[in-house]
């Protein structure tokens, strides 16, 4: 019996070259040539969109037998893959979502969440290292519960283990906690990363509301700060529950 390839692939004996799978791929890694589809294994992030979908009537799209470090692609790209370090499906973390009970970002702090590779482009882990190194230069390290932290070999320098650097993911979430007084420093870091990072990255900042529940973005960053109109808000339903148990 032949071994299953170590990445998502097309079984050419089943593929009829219809091309229905081509537009499904978020990384644009599927092409059809000479009547058969194929997946560019280097560009594929193992997100599982093509294998979960039922676009192929002939079951020609086959999942790979993923081994380390390729497994990392699925962990950072497939929302149905569970990350053992965070026990959260996909690459996400709790960030603002449970801040009312977990107090991850306290009064006077800024939670900085950088998501590399989104939208559309994806990211090599080398770009994640570029960010962790930059923040490490300024004395900021990833928190314990961030999935990337377990892949850092030198926390003071922000260096990731070398075997993962060329792995590609749909996105990679990096988090840092800074004091509100470091708002200007954060903007300077982002300006440097804007020039250096070889993909796109989203930046979100988490800030506690004031006593009346109003946002404080402009109070912390100044009135010139640009943000998109949408916000994500923890509305405090779990406030005080864990403290009451203690």
């Amino acid at each position, binding site marked *: 019996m032949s071994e299953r390839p170590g990445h998502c692939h097309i079984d050419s004996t089943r593929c009829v070259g219809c091309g229905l799978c081509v537009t499904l791929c978020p990384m644009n890694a599927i092409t059809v040539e000479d009547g058969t589809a194929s997946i560019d294994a280097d560009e594929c992030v193992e997100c599982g969109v093509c294998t979960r979908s039922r676009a192929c009537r002939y079951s020609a799209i086959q999942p790979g037998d993923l081994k380390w470090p390729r497994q990392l692609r699925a962990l950072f790209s497939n929302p149905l893959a569970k990350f053992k370090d965070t026990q959260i499906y996909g690459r996400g973390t709790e960030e*603002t979502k449970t801040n009312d009970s977990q107090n991850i970002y306290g009064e006077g702090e800024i939670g900085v969440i950088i998501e590399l590779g989104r939208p559309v482009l994806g990211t090599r882990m080398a770009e994640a290292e570029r960010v962790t190194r930059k923040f490490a230069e300024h004395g900021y390290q990833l928190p314990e519960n961030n999935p990337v932290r377990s892949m850092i070999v030198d926390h003071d320098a922000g260096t990731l283990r070398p075997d993962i650097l060329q792995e590609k993911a749909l996105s990679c979430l990096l988090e840092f906690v800074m004091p509100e007084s470091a708002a200007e420093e954060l903007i300077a870091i982002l300006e440097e990363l804007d020039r250096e990072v070889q993909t796109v990255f989203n930046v979100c900042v988490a800030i506690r509301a004031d006593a009346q529940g109003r946002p404080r973005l402009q109070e912390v960053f100044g009135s010139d700060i640009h943000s998109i109109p949408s916000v994500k808000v923890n509305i405090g339903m779990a406030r005080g529950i864990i403290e009451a148990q203690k």
Partner: protein
Amino acid sequence: MTHSSQRRGLETTDRCKELCIIGMIPKSQFNRRGIKSAMRRLARTMLDHQPNNFIFRDFTEITIPNLGAAQNLLEWLHKRRPELSNRIILWILAHTRSGLSGVYTDLDAAKALITELAGDWRSRNQQKGYPVSIVLSGLPEDVRACCQAAGLTEHTFLHSLDVFGSVEELPPEEELALITMCGHGLIAAGRVRHLAERIRKGKLTPEAAAEEIWKPCVCGIVNRERAAEIFSRLASQPEPEA
């Protein structure tokens, strides 16, 4: 699902168009005895208030890992009683996942949902010690309207400072508005263009295209109404050059 804070295409004038909701148990509390009952009730309440979309809605389009033969049985049921199979799926999810998500396009429905959750559900959680958090994504005025209706005050804001880096490689803004609707970034740019092209050729309606784009993901926060509006606009534009 940090990406719900990065949804594009919602302008400050688009009041009452959409609110995403996420309910989440902290990792440290996931195995707490009884906490899944709070998630079950959350799932039921979310469905009662008629979301536009929700996690794993119409799950029959994708193969759910670990469900095995139960998926065939649920698919059979889904063809006959989709409202029942969706409730069963959410019941299963309430037991197995730390988060539930959905999107509402009627602000009154969202207000009613949050008000109901802020009542008995929250009191029971406080009494039993179940710290299930609720997060809303949308325009701050709409979030505020929900909080005020329910007598709550916002706790923490997550603001997106926008996209940095190689932005010149990104597709046009209208395509991005569709692509960023998925909480996990699984909507392909090529898929959006392909569906817009089919609308241009009269082979698909914008509503049908909106039904297609959320299928790659399970997050259930693609707003089908807004997606159909964007597809209409995209299809009315000339075909982009190859």
